[in-house]
């Protein structure tokens, strides 16, 4: 039978996958889906903790369902924003120059001039 540790390992792996996706994917939609993995791992944590450690607390379990609702709301907003920008016909790629690169370029230009 699976123990609490096993569930925590699974959730940690899913969490790491989510972080990996957020860091290395540049598209908005991919980042959103990767962040869903973090939410999924949080839900696994909640359920496994309440099942193994605190099985008598029913009230907290109802709050967990509320949290799941909150996660769904966040997704709805994410997809709404995605569709809003898509309608405008804009590029939904999060790649862009860092604003502080401008500063570095300025400093480089200053020394070049000298």
């Amino acid at each position, binding site marked *: 039978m699976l123990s609490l540790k096993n569930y925590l390992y699974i959730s940690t792996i899913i*969490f790491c996958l989510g972080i990996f996706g*957020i860091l290395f994917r540049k598209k*908005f939609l991919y*980042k*959103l889906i990767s*962040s*869903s993995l*973090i*939410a999924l*791992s*949080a*839900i696994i*944590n*909640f359920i496994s*903790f*309440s099942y193994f*450690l*605190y099985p008598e*607390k029913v009230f*907290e379990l109802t*709050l967990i369902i*509320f*949290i799941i609702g*909150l*996660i769904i*709301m*966040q*997704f709805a*907003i*994410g997809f709404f*924003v995605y569709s*809003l*920008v898509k309608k*405008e016909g*804009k590029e*939904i790629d*999060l790649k*862009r120059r*860092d*604003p*502080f690169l*401008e*500063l570095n370029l*300025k400093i480089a230009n200053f020394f070049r001039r000298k």
Partner: protein
Amino acid sequence: MSIDFSLIIPELLILSSFLFVLLLLIFNNVTKLKWLSYFCILAVIATITLTFVFKDRMGIVSDNFLEVSKISNFFRYLFLFSGASLLISLIVSKVEKPGIYVLILISIFSAMSLELSSNLLSLLVFLEIVTVLSYFIPTLKFEKIDWLAYLRYVIFGIISTFLIIYLFSFIYGMTGSFSLNVEITNIESVSLLFIIAIIILMAIMIIRLSLFPFHYWFPPLAKEGGFLTTLFFSILVMPANLLVFKEILEKYNFLDFKFTVYIVLFFLCLTILFFNIGAIYQKNIWKFLAFSNVANICLILVGFLYYQYLRIYNMSVYNMFFISLLIYMISTSGLMIGLEIYRIFKLKNNWGNFLEDIKGGARATPILTLPLFVLLISQIGIPGTANFLFKYSLIKTIIGAGGYINLTVSIFLIINYLIIFYYYGRIIFNMFSGIKKDITVNSENKEIDILKKGLRLTISLAFIIICSAILLILGIYGIINTKFYEILMNLF
């Protein structure tokens, strides 16, 4: 579970006014904007009065969900003030979209309820209401929005929300409850969870306060978003996030190890330096103010960490943490509204390079000059203004604590003080210098016209004059009376 509704009367008033405005929008045509805005301001004033009337009534509202205390009363005032200044800013900038009044009222309600919550879930829900509303504010300027900055803001907001939920799952695992009043007892057995929780908390803090690696969370959005977006973020979203971190750090003792506190402190000091240097190179006024405000929030956080974890402060300086937040809110909102009034009446178009645009501002608008000057020197922290007391006592106590690390922190803060002095001093210098010929200043809007423009200008002018007067009075009285913070804290 019994609920005493009389304890949350101010919140109920704001909520009912929100419903009233919503009904008005649904069943009426939306041309009566003036009426709507004055009604909203009246509702906020009534709420401030009611908060003051019921300030002595404290206790738990509903079992394990909301509790009213002295500190929560203080934050109620704070968020009501920010709501009032947001409504005044709507009147100043003549926003033609009535839905935004509903948005502001509901954000005041959720920010006020944020401090009352004694439960992780209600904390999360109210924070999320503020954050989700902040997703809609930049879209009001639909054609000018910087889509990339906006998308980045939304996606990192969503990611940080999920990280908060992930953190809460760990807290639930350690405590077995969502209540904020439960202590973590068996830390040894869950030490790995504890360390992971600290790392996640730091990551959330970095994203939500847009600190160094995530500095593109808020400032680039402020650049195109303009006046209202920057004001909303600076005086409502950022303090709400700061409040949540304060609550979690205070209740769960996440930074009990001194080593981690010093790492966070070092990181915060670097961030302050980074943002202040970044502010020097900004040409857009709102982005510049965004940088400056993030640095200010970091400074307040440094003060809080020194009290909470290094135990250097005494109780009167702990009160100063709250007062510094109040000073930050007053000076920021006053300065922003003042600059917007300047733009509307003296510049033909939007801000370009603000250092050029503000040249000769003192001659063009003598009425505006004095309050703007006071607000600017208060941002620097020159003796005689309220911000000076906070910065001076913070640096003094850190130096007094001794040790190499504290000394390094104080040197960092002094360097930052000089940088802030430079970039705000530059604005003051340009204000009092002559008008440049190639800058177009509206010749039609003479000084007398400002008073003829009607109620909206009189209200906004009165607001910034009151803001600057409060800062001056606090600053001068604080030098005379050393126990002044205790006296001020007793008012709440």
